[in-house]
């Protein structure tokens, strides 16, 4: 499920510190709620990826890859 376009994904992937911007974008796109934004800000990347996999925003394969390879893989999956 594409929640951002390639340009947004590229911008995120190039950021020096990306996590807050990623959460903000996901909230803006209503992929995550306000409460979930707060939860993942506190609990970190792995919990976000688990959630996106459970909600089928990304496939199980992409979730596994994102856990292993990090955020550049995740944003790529989110822009497919």
């Amino acid at each position, binding site marked *: 499920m594409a929640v951002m376009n390639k340009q947004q994904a590229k911008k995120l992937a190039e950021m*020096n*510190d990306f996590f*807050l911007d990623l959460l903000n974008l996901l909230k803006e796109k209503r992929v995550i709620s306000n409460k979930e934004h707060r939860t993942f800000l*506190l*609990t970190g*990347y792995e*919990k*976000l990826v688990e959630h996106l996999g459970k909600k089928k925003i990304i496939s199980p394969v992409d979730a596994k890859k994102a856990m292993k*390879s*990090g955020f550049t893989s995740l944003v790529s999956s989110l822009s497919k």
Partner: protein
Amino acid sequence: MDGWAGQRLRVDLTKGKITKEPLTLEYRKKWIGGRGFNSDVIYNEVPPEMSPFDPRTRVCFGVGPMNGTAAPSTGRVTVTCKSPLTGGFGDSSMGGHWGAEVKYAGYDQIIIQGKAKNPVYIWIDDDKVEIRDASHLWGKFPRDADTMIKEELKDEDIHIMLIGPAGENMVRFACTFNDVWRAAGRTGHGAVIGSKNLKGIATRGSGGVKIARPKEFMEVCNKLRQKFKNDPMKIGLYELGSLCLINFANKDGWLPWKNLQYGGTPLANNMSGETHSQTVLKHREGCYACPICCGRFTEIKEGRWAGEHFGGPEYEHAVPTGPRVGIIEDANDIWHNARLTNDLGMDGIETGAVISSAMEWYQRGLITTKDTGGMELEWGDEDVVDQLIQDIAYRRGFGNVLAEGASRASDKLGLGDDGQYYTIATRGMALPGDDPRGLGFGYGLSFAMGTRGGCDHLRSLCCLELSGALYPGLNTKYLGDERPQKPTTTAGKPYMVYYEENQKAVVDCLNVCCFTTHWSYAVLTQDQLDYFNACTGLDMTLDEFLEVGERVHNLERAYWALLMSGAREDRVPERFTNEPMPQHVDYQTNVGATLPIGEMLPKYYKYRDYEAGTGFPSERKLKQLGLGYVAEDIKPLRKKYMSETEKKKKKYYY
């Protein structure tokens, strides 16, 4: 009552009154224990304008639900007060066994207020609490007072918290110990305790800790103990103690040499963990329930100081009165200096920092022998360092000036901004033995933002950049990115510091040793939550758990706001931003580095939801954390902080 004892002990030394106060479940869920309990008391009971030496001030000793249980390394105690060194919020933490004993006696926290007419110590024997004469103990080293109290109370197995002569003389960076050698080093609470005429607290507890779900609890604990068996950090710390860091620090250019003018010295190996273990290590020691046993016991066998013995030293204890003051050739001098600061009861970091600042003032001609009472403050002169350590503790001559801490000493000597440049401090507290130009830019950011006075390695303890390389994939797990593993990059550091600060705060509420949760990462955040829930019977979620840490951090930050300390004071010593790291060995990895703090601060503020102008926590954030009353306290101060009058004030301490 599962986990917690459910009550705290309040001792009023002025009135001689002892009360026991219940702690509601709601309160315990909000603050958990340790640092959380203490920070709440200080915020609500010690007005920011109160002098740290006012008898009405409080000193809090916080334990928590995990103290006294089988969970690994859950024996620590947090000590909190208004710091006489910085004038702001201050806390410190110590290992040992006293925390468990306090819990077995039936208390989650001890609050001391008032001032005794004469020196006293407190004797807690389960629910029986007495204030006893300590005039015979006043002036004694902790090791001697410990022996005397045990003889007096006829029990070798009691555990005792004590101050040394430096605390009695209200040296602004005096500290406390328990079990003689386990120190809560930083922020000067030993002086506050001394100002109350309190020598110590002896404790005997015969109770236990009730665990809500014991089978589940023991499964988690046993799983963690298995993990420790092959953990690389644990093995290093057991074998060599925290001195295992010396050669790494030297290579990566973060070992302070001559007041951090350099990041190391070619002779660093003289004091490494390897050398220590081969020459002076007598035995290893562990704190309560600890599988690591990083503690050292040292005996000097030859030379001028032959026969001296003491518990320690840690890296942070040995470096300041070693390489930081230019001493490295004879490591026995370093061990002796560490023994002295222990026996006299002073923070080794601040002691070395103030002496090295004075040496650099002398080096650069800002002070002369007229100021020092004739002493020539040459780098590496052990006679001078040995004399100054004692003069500081007993407030004699030039030592009396240095006993105020480097920032105040600089002002007392009339050195202006030039003198402050060489104090290597933020908000009045000196940097420990870790130069962020080498140890990591995350550390540098956390030094600027630390809520106990800044310049502190333990507020976030960014070990994702220190230890990350030993745990492949860990940075990705928490941060989504392996780049932050590299010390000298800013990539991912704002989020790293935000995450680690919250995590460290909740670890401090649990009173778990950070060597098991940040250095070694054997105990992950989820593990902490699992044993906490099994112990207490609560079923907190991970975000609720970490929110406690965020709440504590913001409460402390707000206390600084009440002191008019905010964005303008969120800085690191200019040495790190202005001076590229020079070379000291040819294999050094950080030659030329400076700390780009300005690149990280704005993003960090966004994570924290601090206001850009003041740096105060936003009203929105404080309300989100259930701290609406704190938001009301800060509201009228925002405009004042941004006024031209405030902007002109230079605040090196409060």
